[in-house]
């Protein structure tokens, strides 16, 4: 009872049941792999339909986003994601879910200050820092190219 804060934090950390990492990893691998394989099948399908080589992969992304959005809207994306973890988070499906879920959530607060203001509450940092890092990458690319490295 008379533990210091540091001792207590150490004790709590030791006491906490850890996440089942191996089970979670296997499930994430299976879910992520399934999504990617599904994407590949879609790509073959779109090519078979006669789509151009540049258009087909874009259509695959659009389809995966659509599936993810519809699943979020119907309310069972999160039930899948609580098992699949990074498997559904890392592919484009996770990003779509991160944008759509606050949109649905904040509907009651209105179009502008609800949906408009909160739409990127989860995905916003990804967009911001993603864009920023692409700028940094661009600068490096430009400099290295100028010096013909």
């Amino acid at each position, binding site marked *: *009872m008379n533990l210091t*804060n540091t001792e207590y934090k150490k004790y*709590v950390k030791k006491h906490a*049941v850890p996440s089942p990492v191996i089970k*979670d990893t296997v499930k994430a691998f299976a879910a992520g792999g399934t999504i990617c394989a599904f994407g590949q099948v879609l790509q073959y399908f779109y090519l078979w339909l006669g789509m151009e080589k540049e258009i087909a992969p874009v259509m695959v992304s659009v389809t995966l986003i659509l599936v993810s959005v519809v699943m979020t809207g119907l*309310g069972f*994306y999160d039930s899948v994601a609580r098992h699949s973890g990074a498997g559904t988070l890392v592919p484009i499906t996770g990003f779509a879910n*991160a944008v759509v879920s606050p949109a649905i*959530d*904040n509907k009651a607060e209105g179009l502008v200050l609800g949906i408009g203001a909160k739409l990127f509450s989860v995905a916003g940092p990804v967009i911001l820092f993603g864009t920023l890092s692409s700028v940094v990458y661009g600068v490096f690319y430009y400099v290295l190219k100028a010096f013909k490295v």
Partner: protein
Amino acid sequence: MSGIIKFGVRPEILASSAVGGYTESKGNLGRYFDLTDPTDKFGKKTFEQAESEMQRLALNFALKKSGLGPEDLEAVFAGDLMNQCTGSSFGLAGFGIPFFGLYGACSTAAESLILAAMSVNAGYFSRAAAVSSSHNSAAERQFRFPLGYGCQRPPTSQWTATASGAFIIGKGGESTGVALTEALPGRIVDKGITDQSNMGAAMAPAAAATLYTYFTESGNHPDDFDLILTGDLGREGHEICYELLSSSGLRLGENFTDCGILLYDSEAQDLHSGGSGCGCSAAVTAGFIMKRFAESRLRNVLLVGTGALMSPTSVLQGLAIPGIAHLVRFSSL
């Protein structure tokens, strides 16, 4: 100096009621609710309004059971988990009862019971109500992520209960045969836990401190009680609290449990460490515990309402989560 309040005139629980959501109806105590709604919306458009509606329904049920009207109540002490306590003020506005809005995080059920009992005991009011609630969807939105956002919760995380509990407290009359005999208001304990998904660990030291003080000062023995019930430590916090007390030489027995553990079948419902929220201890006590008193299967119970006193802002700013635990004793007449 003893901090224990002994209620001389024994404020009684005239009636109580519990209202819950879908997950609660499927839990271990589903049948002890007066009403559950499988949609979690209680006929309202938003989850926030649903939480208010739960409080309104809970107080209505309690009034009906006691045969009293709102005009018979001289005050209501109420609280919830939402910003600025709107769950309570919006839900109870229609009754026209003098209103005290409380925020004790998940300890609000015990806090409101103590305040109502104190004011009845002191003679300021002849009857007062204590109401508290939490709504899983309203709380998740405020404290964590949007509802449909797909994420994994660690094993130590808890599930905010969608539930409300109401008690009507008065002197004598048509009572349930249960009186509030003692109370021990808790002190804020901050042990530096910052992990929002391990609130059991944040609150456990406060619960242990309150229980330790109670047993040291009152001279009572843990075996004197049929149940020693913490509010919402969950499995994780419950074990920590037990170990903290054991290391101080206070060994609690089989009668030591937690409302968050009782409310759900955590394993089958995949709710990790168990339930939390103001509604958790409120509904478990107002529904299940009061029913057991009525059946004479319980005669002496300690409720230690536990609360994690953080806000979404304090968590983002990296501040630790202070805990609090208020103790109240129920005894059959």
